[in-house]
């Protein structure tokens, strides 16, 4: 029974199926909203799903310079770790494996899809991919610092005088004291986190790694068919996971009493976060240069997060 239950968690509800479906839905929302902002009709909401299934039906070409195992395994590893992160993030107060993991685990699990992209791109043997992985890695280094600072600030706020890296404790604290976002010392951290989310997902102003017009999609250049579809799915799932992480860190205090309502509220909040931090920035900005991106994250964004951490440390 326990095994069945865990299998259900892993494969269906907060795990693989739910995350991928909802991730694709969020990607659709993102594309639609961007289109509406540009005064277009835009693709239907199901468009990412069509993309994914179309890619599954296409031929997967493995170039002769590529290492077959790494080339095919990389997207799957990314997919699996993304599906698993969702098990540790409270979805409206519901965690599949509560108490089993904390923020640091999530932080590390979130880097795995990036690493998978890098290893996959690197194994394809293309020099464009080489440039792409370099940029992806620099982006990763860039957002890691503010991300860490935000997590530490939240942990300190929720934990008080004791250590609380656990997501569950953050959720409990918010259920008692209201949303983290409305603590004024946490506002800089929330803004920093809103800027970390698009970099992690790799949407418009921060998509230097996959710049399709300069370096031919970077790490994805040699991917086609099912493997590419997997990567596109990973990007969509990352949107959901990151916006879900934001919601559970900063807006996790909304409780109606019924789990179903909580989950619906969670999903709605995810959509809102996606629209604010991904679609809007996508529609209004142009792509950054890689060195500007790094500087931006290590000065402005990290500064915001550090400011928040110091405020929290002073007991505010």
């Amino acid at each position, binding site marked *: 029974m326990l095994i069945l239950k865990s299998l259900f968690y892993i494969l269906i509800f907060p795990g693989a199926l739910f995350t991928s479906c909802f991730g694709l839905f969020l990607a659709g929302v993102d594309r639609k909203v961007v289109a509406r902002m540009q005064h277009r009709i835009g*693709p239907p909401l199901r468009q990412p799903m069509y993309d994914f299934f179309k890619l599954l039906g296409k031929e997967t070409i493995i170039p002769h310079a590529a290492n077959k195992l790494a080339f095919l395994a990389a997207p799957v590893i990314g997919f699996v770790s993304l599906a698993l992160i969702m098990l540790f993030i409270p979805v409206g107060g519901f965690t599949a494996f509560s108490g089993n993991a904390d923020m640091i685990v999530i932080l590390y699990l979130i880097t795995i899809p990036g690493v998978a992209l890098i290893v996959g791109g690197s194994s394809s043997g293309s020099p464009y991919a080489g440039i792409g992985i370099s940029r992806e890695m620099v982006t990763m280094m860039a957002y890691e610092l503010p991300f860490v600072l935000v997590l530490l600030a939240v942990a300190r706020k929720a934990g008080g005088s004791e250590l609380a890296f656990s997501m569950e404790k953050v959720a409990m604290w918010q259920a008692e004291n209201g949303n983290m976002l409305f603590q004024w010392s946490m506002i800089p951290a929330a803004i920093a986190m809103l800027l970390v989310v698009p970099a992690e997902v790799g949407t418009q102003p921060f998509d230097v790694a996959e710049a399709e017009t300069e*370096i031919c999609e970077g790490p994805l*250049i040699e*991917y086609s068919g099912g493997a590419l579809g997997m990567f596109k799915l990973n990007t969509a799932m990352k949107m959901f996971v990151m916006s879900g992480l934001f919601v559970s860190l900063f807006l996790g205090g909304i409780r109606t009493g019924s789990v179903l309502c909580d989950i619906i509220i969670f999903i709605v909040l995810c959509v809102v976060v996606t629209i604010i931090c991904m679609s809007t920035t996508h529609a209004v900005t142009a792509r950054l240069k890689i060195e500007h991106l790094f500087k931006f994250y290590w000065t402005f964004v990290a500064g915001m997060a550090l400011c928040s951490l110091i405020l929290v440390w002073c007991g505010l």
Partner: protein
Amino acid sequence: MFNKLINDSASKSPWLYHINSGSCNGCDIELVAVLTPRYDAERFGFKLAGTPRHADIVVVSGPVTSQSRERLIRTLAQVPEPKCVVSLGSCPKSGNVFKGSYSVEAPLDNFVHVDVSVAGCTPKPEAIMEGLYKAALILKEKREAMHK
């Protein structure tokens, strides 16, 4: 059921890869116009891809100069099946005003199988859109033929 889903999506998300084989840039601009908010090809799922590996529809403009012929063929070979080739404008169809030149090898049909030709110098965005849409339907047929 799964197969049917895939077949249905084959025509709903055609990604374009654009090859300029010596065109005067007129057709290229019109192709970009198709993607602008006024015509908004994205509502049918059209999207420009950065590499032939991602493409479903290859749009070829220009009269296929001798310099670009080999590169064109090589790039076309790298597109995964099922794929469609759309020739854009009169140049790849007939050579247009460049016909007979020592450096022009039009028509495109001599080297590759062209699924849809959009004629005109330059074709209107509406015409391009229709051509692309037809190509998308052909994609679905090809996909079904592949998995018979």
